[in-house]
């Protein structure tokens, strides 16, 4: 279907990277970052997500934040595939520091070293950090 913005900037595909560095609850950054990611999917850009530092907790399985009055938006990460956002990277070191493995995460990700993440970041046109 044709959305109003789709007629503009035909063919301009840039590499967008969203870096998520904060725990899912405690501040709103993770939730509002996810909202930007979902919108960016409508622009047919080349989107990557990075989860680093406490940001790796955003992808942790079995979140149950109802008792602090929050909606469990971690399930939304599983909708990303349907939005064609499929490049999800996590920082290996951040995972290890927190005793997490890929089995603890609710979506498929690629684990990268700091150096590999740095190289990937260098390839980007737009890096937004949350």
């Amino acid at each position, binding site marked *: 279907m044709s*959305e109003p913005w789709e007629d503009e900037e035909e063919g301009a595909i840039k590499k967008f990277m969203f870096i998520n560095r904060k725990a899912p609850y405690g501040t709103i950054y993770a939730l509002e970052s996810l909202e930007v990611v979902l919108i960016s999917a409508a622009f047919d850009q080349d989107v990557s997500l990075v989860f680093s530092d406490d940001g790796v907790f955003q992808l942790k399985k079995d979140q149950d934040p109802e008792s602090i009055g929050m909606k469990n938006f971690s399930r939304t990460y599983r*909708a990303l595939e349907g939005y064609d956002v499929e490049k999800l990277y996590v920082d290996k070191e951040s995972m290890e520091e927190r005793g997490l493995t890929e089995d603890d995460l609710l979506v498929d990700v690629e684990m990268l070293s700091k150096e590999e993440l740095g190289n990937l970041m260098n390839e980007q046109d737009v890096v937004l950090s949350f």
Partner: protein
Amino acid sequence: MPIEVNGKTLETDEEGYLADLNDWEPAVAEVMAKLEDCELTDEHWEIINYLREYYEEYQIAPAVRVLTKAVGKKMGKDKGNSKYLYGLFPYGPGKQACKYAGLPKPTGCV
């Protein structure tokens, strides 16, 4: 403007979305549709139910094109297009169908 559903008075906002999503029941959709001169058919319900399942699973209302793609995959190509969805929900599947389905109001965020 509050709406009357099965003898209960339910709060809605300026645009007719439920104030409390827990108030939703199928009769809510029927009442909302009637207010907009829309008769709900099985085809409408197929979409409304899918939206509710999607929201339950992912905690968001899908973008229209995500919905379109998913409907096509699940219910067949003849339904997975915007013409079909806008035919059922002329005010837009994102707004109208989500309202009937008792999903949060879209922020208008594009």
